[in-house]
């Protein structure tokens, strides 16, 4: 037994990651050498620490209090979930203040929590010019986002998607521009975020700029201006959605960014990723996209397939959408009924992932927490699937406009007369027409006998 204990400790001591082990109460049982080197605290001293201080510690507090705060797991870990938090660490041992990301992995036996294994990942020093650091609580949302984006892309078996995964992984490791080409709603923005948040500059910021919707002068202010827009945010990656909508002079200025970045070891301007829904060569041919700018962006091109080519992934995608909806206000349904599945699998999803999510969101609202069935899905979806190939060659049906208008007119006149108890003068006023016209229409519609004139008693 003693041999085995020795081996696991030696194993952890060999790790370059600072590791620690807590008991279920949060007392430190073990720290490895990397932890000692990072913190400057020997293992014997560390075993007197107890991770029970969730509140942020001020930068002026002593190092022991800071470490206790670092070692304190988030609440969900005691419930058995993996947790992560980001901790602000003040200057110590001639090192500047920094952020540390701390992962907590609960270890359970048959009865409950046995202990917690922790790992510290230094996330970078806080630049002096950045202003006062943000409070840890404000960063909790970012920690969640980074955790979600760091996981497996899809776990898809489709060769096309596995290729995209590999390209995203490669793109995250290099600094060159990336061009994502795929239909609207196919997930290009999420891919751009993954490329950034899995790369070496993930501690700096990522901005998605919608070139189609934002006015050009606002985009220019963000990219090049001083006027409070970017406010010198530490942007390492800028994702341009539909850059063909940018004026050509802005495209030319962005091209100089790319060219300057390629030729020097000096501090990099933000890395550019672009997303284009249409055929980029058509945009170039029609003069909407500068050819040199396009060529520079397409240094690494990733083609994102439409959802219709990913039907095998639909069960997994639907599950992920429902899990995502479950993060909202009320519990979202976790199931689709068989008839709902039939429609989801048969539909062509021209709006891709965005449409899938929107449909499930509205269906989830209609179904409350019950399983989603076909009646919860939008009518257009059900019609598109049930009409099937007939949609390709729709048969022409005459639209009887006159008959339709007459029905509407009849209904409105009946309503107005009923509202005013047969008083034609009042009914005409309600319909914003002269009374003689109302009388003519009553005769024409055959309503004259059914709507005899009545007058309210004068007051």
């Amino acid at each position: 037994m003693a041999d085995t204990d020795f081996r696991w400790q030696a194993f952890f001591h060999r790790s370059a990651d600072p590791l620690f082990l807590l008991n279920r109460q949060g007392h430190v049982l073990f720290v490895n050498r990397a932890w000692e080197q990072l913190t400057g605290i020997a293992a014997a001293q560390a075993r007197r620490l107890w991770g029970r201080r969730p509140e942020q510690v001020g930068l002026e507090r002593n190092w022991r209090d800071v470490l206790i705060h670092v070692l304190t797991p988030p609440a969900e870990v005691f419930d058995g979930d993996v947790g992560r938090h980001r901790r602000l660490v003040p200057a110590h041992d001639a090192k500047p203040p920094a952020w540390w990301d701390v992962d907590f992995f609960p270890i359970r036996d048959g009865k409950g929590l046995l202990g917690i294994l922790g790992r510290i990942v230094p996330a970078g020093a806080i630049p002096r010019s950045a202003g006062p650091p943000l409070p840890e609580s404000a960063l909790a949302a970012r920690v969640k986002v980074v955790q979600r984006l760091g996981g497996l892309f899809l776990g898809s078996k489709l060769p096309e998607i596995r290729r995209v995964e590999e390209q995203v992984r490669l793109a995250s490791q290099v600094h060159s521009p990336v061009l994502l080409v795929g239909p609207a709603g196919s997930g290009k923005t999420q891919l751009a975020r993954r490329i950034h948040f899995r790369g070496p500059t993930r501690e700096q910021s990522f901005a998605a700029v919608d070139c189609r919707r934002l006015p050009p002068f606002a985009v220019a202010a963000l990219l090049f201006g001083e006027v409070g827009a970017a406010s010198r945010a530490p942007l390492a990656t800028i994702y341009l959605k539909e850059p063909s909508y940018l004026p050509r002079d802005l495209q030319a200025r962005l091209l100089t960014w790319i060219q300057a970045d390629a030729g020097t070891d000096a501090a990099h301007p933000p890395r550019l990723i672009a997303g284009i829904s249409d055929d980029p060569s058509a945009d170039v041919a029609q003069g909407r996209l500068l050819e040199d700018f396009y060529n520079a962006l397409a240094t690494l091109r990733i083609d994102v397939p439409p959802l219709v080519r990913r039907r095998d992934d639909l069960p997994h995608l639907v599950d992920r959408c429902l899990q995502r909806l479950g993060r909202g206000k009320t519990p979202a349904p976790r199931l689709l009924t068989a008839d709902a599945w039939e429609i989801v699998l048969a539909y062509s999803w021209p709006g891709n992932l965005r449409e899938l999510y929107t449909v499930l969101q509205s269906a989830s609202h209609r179904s409350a927490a019950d399983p989603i069935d076909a009646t919860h899905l939008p009518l257009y979806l059900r019609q598109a699937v049930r009409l099937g190939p007939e949609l390709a060659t729709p048969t022409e049906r005459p639209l009887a406009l006159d008959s339709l208008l007459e029905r509407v007119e009849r209904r409105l006149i009946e309503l107005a007369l009923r509202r005013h108890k047969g008083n034609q003068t009042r009914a005409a006023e309600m319909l914003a027409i002269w009374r003689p016209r109302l009388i003519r229409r009553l005769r024409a519609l055959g309503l004259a006998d059914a709507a005899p004139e009545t007058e309210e008693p004068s007051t």
Partner: protein
Amino acid sequence: MRHPQLLIHAADSLLSEMLSPAAKRQRWVVRHPREWEEVWELLEVGGAGVLVLRVGRDLEAEMMLLERVTDLFPDTGIVVVGDAVHAPLAGLAWDLGASYVLFLPQPPELLEAVVEGLMQQPAGAR
């Protein structure tokens, strides 16, 4: 036809006043939700629009709100408005999915133009 909705999450009326002329001109439905639950209901029932989020009073709640709206209502444009230039806060807001970040004081035209632009539906949205 449903009018696009403009949600303003702020402690005072400054942003409402700045956007009031554009809101009248464009016939936006303007609402002032206070909590996440209200924002959620308005977006779920009223459809995507634009959320203008003033930050600085309760950063934890404001950043959580930003993250949740981005996650659950990705077609909603979000404009984050801060009181004073703060680079880390701008970076965080961008990271969490803001469509635009700006710091006061600003000419109303910039905020108006950004909100008007974001009121357009994203490409390919139904």
